[in-house]
């Protein structure tokens, strides 16, 4: 510090002080950037390594030499997984349940948020307390009673049984409410003048004005449902009803351990959400920040 102060003292103006310092820092900045890049490459390496392994023949996968690229490229592992496991069926299960969770969660949450944001009615307090309580209760602690409940409804090994307990997402209501709150009152008053019904105002003004946030919330809700493990794992025991994230770990290959095939199944299970993320990066970021209570 004292050296820095001395240096600053010899400079005639703040401007030169700044320039002098930034020249001295160039090396440091370059080094930091280099460290960042190396660290990022190491961080992403396991994904790359899994991907590369799936493109090798099994004999090369367990070979002695370390190949960062396949010596022989092959899709055998993927072909094997597609033909010999029920992954197609698991994909369908994941797709149906995740889309249903997303659509239902968003519909329930948007309607509730609109009522809380724009309408005055008795029982608002009750709804607020329910939302607050559901924020705090760990859904993981409810697995036993969710299972009992779904068993009573006869929904074990059923799409509906997988879907229902995943509908509790209070944060989506809160995010929607904040956005509905910030829609200017003039829109609502103008619509009222034209004697538009509340339903019309909700579906023709408030929802369309917030399509952006609906998209963002839909994507993260979908990714969350697709990736959910615990509940789909408990609610289903029949292999043909499993979600893809559960199926790839619960059904063992009848052909013995084959690393490229195992990893190919994993890559396929992640493919859809990875592509969704890469396309909608900004939306995903926005939704995550909003859900954490930070303005994106």
């Amino acid at each position, binding site marked *: 510090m004292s050296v820095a102060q001395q240096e600053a003292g010899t400079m005639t103006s703040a401007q030169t002080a700044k320039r002098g310092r930034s020249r001295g820092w160039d090396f440091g900045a370059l080094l930091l950037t280099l460290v960042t890049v190396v660290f990022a490459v190491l961080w992403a390496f396991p994904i790359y390594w899994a991907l590369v392994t799936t493109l090798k023949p099994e004999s090369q996968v367990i070979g002695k030499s370390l190949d960062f690229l396949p010596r022989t490229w092959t899709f055998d592992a993927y072909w094997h997984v597609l033909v010999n496991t029920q992954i197609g069926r698991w994909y369908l299960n994941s797709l149906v349940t995740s889309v249903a969770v997303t659509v239902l969660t968003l519909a329930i949450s948007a309607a509730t948020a609109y009522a809380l944001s724009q309408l005055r009615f008795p029982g608002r307090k009750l709804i607020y307390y329910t939302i607050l309580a559901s924020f705090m209760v760990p859904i993981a602690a409810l697995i036993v009673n969710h299972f*009992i409940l779904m068993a009573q409804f006869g929904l074990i090994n059923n799409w509906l049984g997988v879907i229902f307990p995943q509908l509790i997402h209070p944060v989506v209501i809160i995010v929607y409410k904040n956005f509905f709150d910030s829609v200017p009152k003039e829109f609502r008053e103008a619509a009222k003048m034209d004697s538009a019904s509340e339903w019309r105002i909700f579906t023709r003004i408030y929802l369309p004005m917030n399509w952006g946030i609906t998209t963002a919330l839909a994507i993260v809700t979908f990714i969350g449902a697709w990736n959910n493990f615990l509940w789909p794992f408990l609610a289903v025991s029949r292999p043909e009803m499993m979600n893809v994230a559960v199926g790839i770990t619960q059904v063992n290959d009848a052909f013995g351990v084959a690393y490229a095939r195992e990893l190919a199944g994993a890559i396929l299970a992640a493919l859809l959400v990875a592509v969704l993320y890469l396309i909608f990066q900004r939306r995903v970021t926005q939704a995550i920040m909003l859900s954490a209570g930070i303005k994106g």
Partner: protein
Amino acid sequence: MIRNQRREWAVAFLLVLPFLLTYGVLFVWPTIQMVQLSFTDAPLIGTGEWVGFENYIEMFDDRRFWTAFNNTAYFVVLTVIPNTLIGLAIAMMVSRLKGWQQSLILAMFFLPYILPVSVVYRIWNWMFNVQFGILQYPISFFAGETINVFRTQWMFMPAVALVTIWWTCGFNILLFLAGLRSISPDIYEAAALDNANRWTIFRKITWPLIWPVTALVLTIQLILQLKIFDQVYLFVQGGRPDPSMVMVQYIYTMAFQRNQGGYAAAIAVALFVIVIVFSVLQFQLLRARGEK
């Protein structure tokens, strides 16, 4: 006027009806049932006798419960603070970059976060594979021999923690990035004029100004990691689950493998109480942020 109000009530009621149904049936009811079940000796499916606090008394004497409790606490210690600090460090590195470079590097750090846990498990099981895993090169270099990490008791939790940090850090990075962006560049310029060095700038400016985000990330992580199940369950597959048992896993074992619904519910209530204590803390923090 009254008629208008009535109509507004009716519309509001219709709008919140789906909420009342789903949260009533799938949240409020199971919560009440859980507490009730914890006072009985019921199996998973079926009815049982009312046994009062017997399950809770049994729980306090149950060695396996305390193992699960301690392992959960250990996992929280291993993940929460490291995950937060690594998230901050990476966010600071990423925030220096601009444009497409930033997007690319951020995507490399964030990608693991959107993977399903079973995929994360497959990837790292392969990385650590005792015969062919690429990590056995450094492991045998340092240890002199290959090690089956997920079958070595003292390594199990740290290894799962490492994988968890790799998997979930992206979330923390995003929150810290947002926090760093909201710090005015003027403050840094002023510091640059004073010839402050990097460490001083971090200690005197970045750290205090980012602290609210740090507190938020810490509490989110804490609540999240208390509910650990998936990774521990997956990595222990084929091995002995008991020594590395965590709380949600113990609930699962008691309910679904031992068919002791009542006892499992009592453990669930214990977890529930622990999480609620920390959630209240988080809520207070968020409110403090909101009021500012």
